[in-house]
C-alpha cells in the first residue's frame, strides 16, 4: 500500500498514511467488535437465564447499552490503591490491550494473491500465538501491583493456566500447519478454497477432533468461563482486576473480547475455511480467478471479509453460550483437563493426521472425494505424488522457489 500511495505523495508520508490506515482499521475493528460482543453477551446470557437482558437503551433491544456502559466507565474515578506499585499498576491494562490488538496485525481477512492483511508475515500463525501469549503479562502485572491478595491469587492462577494451555494449543495449531505445509495464514486459508468439503476440519477424522480440542484450549487461554479462574467472583472478589475501576478496567475487558475474537478468527482460518464460505459463491458467480477486473475482485474479497468476520462472530457466540451454560471448573480440574486430556489427545491427533496425510494425500472430506485441480493449483507446495523418493530428490535439487514450502 505504501508503494501505491507513494505515487501520489511523498514517500515518507505514504509510509505514515499506510501505517495509520492499517492501525486505524484494526483498532476500530477490535473496539467495535468489543461493543457488539458485550451487548451480545448481555443479551444471550439474559435469554439463557430466561430474562430479557437490556431492553431500553437506544430504543429497541438495548443496542446502545454498551455505549452507556462506556460513558459510565469514563466518568468513574481512576483509583490507585495506596500500597500499589503505581507505575506497574497504571501500565498493566495497556500491556494486555496492546497484546490483544497486536495479534490482529498478522491475521488475514481475505486471501488470494493480494490478501487483506496488515502485515503479511511468512510465519503468521506463529506470530499470532506468540503475541496472544503476551496478554497474560498485563494480568500478572495487574495482580502483583495491586497489593491485594485477591488480585495476586487471580494472577497466579491465570499464569499457571496460560502457561499450561499453551502446550496443547500449540500442538493443535501444528496439525493444520502440517497439512497445509506452511506457517503462512494466507496459504493455509487459500488451500481450503471451494466447497466446505475442503475445509481442514473435514480433512480427516483427526483434524475434526483437533478443531474441538483447539477451541477448548483457546477458550482456556483467553481466560473465558468455564476456565475463568483468574476472576472467579465467588472466591476471589474479581480476581486480578479487583482494584481497577473506570477506563483501565474497561481496557482489560476490551483485551479479553479482542483476544476472544482473534482466537475465533484463527480457528476459522486454520480449520473452517477462513474467507472461503461453505459454498464457493465467488467461483459460481465468476468473481474469482486471474482474469477478473478490479471491481469483481473487490467484491470477492469483501465476501471473504464477511466470511471471516461472521465465522469469528460465531466462534465468540459459541464461547458466550458455553460460558453461561457450564459451571466454573476448580483449579485442579482445569489442570487435569489440560495435562491429562487436551495434551495427550492433541499429541495423538497430530500423529494420526501426519500418518493420514502421508498415506492418503490429495483427497478431502474424510478421504471420500479427490481434491479438485483448482485447489491443488492454489495449494502451493502440496505434493500429491510425494511417495516417490527420486522425485523428492529432484525437488530438493530444484530449490524452494519451485516446490513451495513443503517437500
Amino acid at each position, binding site marked *: 500500500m505504501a508503494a501505491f500511495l507513494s505515487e501520489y505523495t*511523498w*514517500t*515518507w508520508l505514504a*509510509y505514515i498514511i499506510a501505517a495509520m490506515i492499517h492501525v486505524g482499521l484494526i483498532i476500530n475493528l477490535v473496539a467495535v467488535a468489543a461493543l457488539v460482543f458485550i451487548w451480545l453477551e448481555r443479551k444471550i446470557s439474559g435469554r439463557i437465564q430466561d430474562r430479557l437482558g437490556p431492553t431500553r437503551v437506544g430504543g429497541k433491544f438495548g443496542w446502545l447499552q454498551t455505549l452507556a456502559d462506556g460513558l459510565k466507565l469514563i466518568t468513574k474515578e481512576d483509583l490507585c490503591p495506596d500500597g500499589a*506499585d503505581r*507505575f*506497574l499498576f497504571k501500565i498493566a491494562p495497556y500491556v494486555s490491550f496492546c497484546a490483544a490488538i497486536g495479534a490482529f496485525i498478522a491475521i488475514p481477512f481475505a486471501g488470494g494473491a493480494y490478501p487483506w492483511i496488515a502485515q503479511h*508475515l*511468512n*510465519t503468521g500463525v*506463529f*506470530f499470532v*500465538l*506468540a*503475541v496472544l*501469549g*503476551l496478554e*497474560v*503479562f498485563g494480568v*500478572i*502485572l495487574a495482580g*502483583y*501491583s495491586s497489593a491485594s491478595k485477591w488480585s*495476586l491469587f487471580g*494472577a*497466579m492462577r491465570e*499464569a499457571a493456566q496460560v*502457561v499450561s494451555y*499453551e502446550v496443547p494449543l500449540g500442538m493443535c495449531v501444528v496439525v493444520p500447519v502440517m497439512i497445509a505445509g506452511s*506457517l503462512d495464514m494466507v496459504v493455509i486459508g487459500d488451500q481450503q478454497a471451494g466447497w466446505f468439503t475442503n475445509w481442514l476440519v473435514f480433512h480427516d477424522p483427526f483434524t475434526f477432533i483437533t478443531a474441538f480440542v483447539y477451541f477448548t484450549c483457546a477458550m482456556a487461554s483467553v481466560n473465558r468461563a468455564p476456565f475463568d479462574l483468574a476472576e472467579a467472583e465467588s472466591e476471589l472478589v474479581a480476581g486480578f482486576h479487583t482494584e481497577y475501576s473506570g477506563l483501565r478496567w474497561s481496557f482489560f475487558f476490551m483485551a479479553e473480547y479482542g483476544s476472544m475474537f482473534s482466537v475465533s478468527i484463527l480457528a476459522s482460518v486454520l480449520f473452517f475455511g477462513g474467507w472461503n464460505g461453505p459454498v464457493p459463491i465467488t467461483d459460481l458467480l465468476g468473481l474469482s480467478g486471474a482474469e477478473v477486473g478490479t471491481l469483481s475482485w473487490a467484491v470477492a474479497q469483501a465476501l471473504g471479509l464477511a466470511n471471516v468476520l461472521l465465522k469469528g462472530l460465531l466462534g465468540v457466540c459459541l464461547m458466550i453460550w458455553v460460558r453461561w451454560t457450564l459451571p466454573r471448573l476448580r483449579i485442579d480440574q482445569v489442570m487435569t483437563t489440560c495435562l491429562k486430556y487436551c495434551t495427550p489427545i492433541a499429541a495423538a491427533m497430530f500423529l494420526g493426521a501426519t500418518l493420514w496425510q502421508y498415506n492418503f494425500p490429495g483427497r478431502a472430506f474424510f478421504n471420500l472425494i479427490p481434491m479438485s485441480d483448482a485447489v491443488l493449483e492454489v495449494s502451493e507446495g502440496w505434493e500429491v505424488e510425494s511417495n516417490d523418493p527420486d522425485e523428492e530428490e529432484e525437488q*530438493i*535439487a530444484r*530449490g*524452494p522457489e519451485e516446490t513451495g*514450502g513443503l*517437500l
Partner: protein
Amino acid sequence: MDSIYWPSFFFWLFSGVACTFALGVLLSKNIVRMAFYLVISLASTSGLFFLAGADFVGAMQLMIYVGGTLVLLIFGVMLTSQDRFVEMRTSSGEWVIAFFIGLMLFFTLGRAAFGVAAWKGLDRETAEAVEVERTVTPLAMGLLGARVDQLDEPDAAKREGMSGYLFHFEIVSVHLLVVLIGAAYLARAKRKTGSVAANA
C-alpha cells in the same frame, strides 16, 4: 524529509528502547519491575529481527524469550514475597567486578562487530535495492538437513559440507532432554525408603 531512511529510523528506535530498558533492568531494585523491563527490552530485540526480515526468528524471540520471562516473573513474585527480598541491593564489590567483565565483553563484541568485512553496513542505494527474502523455508530446510540457499554453490566439494543444521539441532534437543530429566530429578520430592515402601 525524504532523506529519512525508515529502516535506519526503526533500527535506532528499537535498539534505543532495548538498550534503555536493559539499563533499567540493571539499575532497578524491584525484581518484578526488572522482569517487566526485561520483557520490553527483549520485545524490542524481536522488533529488530522483524525489521531485518527474519520473521521466524522474531516470532521465536517473542515466544521463547519474552514468554520465558513470564515464568521468571512468576518465580520472582512467588519466591520474593517476603519483604527482605523484594528490594535487591548490589554491593559495590559486585559492581566493580561486573563493570570490568562487561567492559571486556563489550570490547570483544565491538571488535568482532566492526572487524568482519562482511558485517559492514551497506550504503543506502545498495540497501534499498536489496529484496528482503522470506526466511522461514530455507531455515526449516536447513534444520531438516538441506541448505537450499547454498544449492548454487559451484564447487561440489563445498556443497557436500553444507548439509544443514540437523546434527546441531539433534544435539541441542538431546541436551534439552538431559536438562529436563535433571530438573525433574532435582525437583523430585525426596522420600525416605520406609515411606516409599509404605506408599507402594
